């Protein structure tokens, strides 16, 4: 594909959706949960489509989309008043990680984490961004981003000890 590119012409947006749609949906889902994730995904790609012709050539499209998704997810959390300004784990009983429900249970366990942990885990582990870039999106230092993700992972491990056997 890359070899056929016509000069610096932009990729058709359809290709952007095909290439990055799944990742953005996973990010939205990790941060918002199943129901709101699809709304946030749609809002993200509509906003991206609007701004796309003005995007500079050679931009990191994935980081651009994740940044938009980050803001759209925050809008949803604010609208539904789920934006809790605390780093405390919400009081919620840990689910037992039965092997069959492992995958879907992981989403739920992610939802139970504080926002910053969900965000840093989503951007670093689901998208694959380095912590420096994660920090640029969530704010704060690179170290703080790394710590938040590590705390989140530790909490997930407590919920899903059986995951270690995989």
């Amino acid at each position, binding site marked *: 594909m890359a070899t*056929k590119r016509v000069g610096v012409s932009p990729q058709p947006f359809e290709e952007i959706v095909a290439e990055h749609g799944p990742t953005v949906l996973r990010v939205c889902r990790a941060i918002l949960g199943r129901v709101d994730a699809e709304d946030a995904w749609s809002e993200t790609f509509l906003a991206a*489509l609007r701004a796309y012709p003005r995007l500079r050539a050679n931009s990191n499209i994935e980081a651009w989309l994740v940044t938009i998704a980050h803001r759209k997810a925050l809008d949803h959390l604010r609208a539904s008043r789920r934006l809790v300004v605390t780093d405390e784990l919400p009081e919620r009983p840990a689910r037992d990680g039965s092997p069959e429900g492992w995958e*879907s249970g992981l*989403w739920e366990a992610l939802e139970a984490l504080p926002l910053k942990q969900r965000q840093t885990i989503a951007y670093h582990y689901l998208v694959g961004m380095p912590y420096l870039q994660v920090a640029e999106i969530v704010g704060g230092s690179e170290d703080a981003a790394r710590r938040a993700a590590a705390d989140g992972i530790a909490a997930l491990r407590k919920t899903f000890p059986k995951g270690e056997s995989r």
Partner: protein
Amino acid sequence: MMKERDLFAALPTIDEAVSRRLHQRLVDAASAAGLLDVAYRTIETPVGTLLLAATPKGLVRVAYASEDHDLVLERLARDVSPRILRAPARLDRVAREIEEYFARRRSTFDTPLDLRLSHGFRRTVLSHLPEIGYGKTASYAAVAKAAGRPKAVRAVGSACATNPLPVVVPCHRVVRSDGTIGQYVGGVEAKHMLLALESAA
């Protein structure tokens, strides 16, 4: 010890139904917001898979598989707008007309056209091509004359070769003065097929 990345590799991938639903939702929202600058789809025909692309103004591009549909879409992104989505419903009408044409139930196209990809004399040439009736042919020289530049026979050839709307704008009806079929954007075989289709009607 398990690697963290593997923990998330176990998350289910997005299933096909969700992808389709989200894509449709994006197309609808983009249409409603006036952000769908180019809609496209493909259609299977006796001359192969055709790419159809439309702006809100009308059909802007018909492309043969030999033109490389990915490349055609990239050029549309550059020359018209990168706000391009696969949106088959937006091309239902033209797809139906093309199907009717190949079924010999239609001899002229009524779908609105957007000729923005053609400029100057080439565009003038294209605007004269529908004057060649269904099942008829005209020579490059005759078209040059009709377009007001009788000596520009070669330019008529390049106008046909770069026709952004083959099949619908009938450059396949332009042949050489000696009666041989001449070149065609979709290949000589496709040109033969279209002329045979029309003459059999």
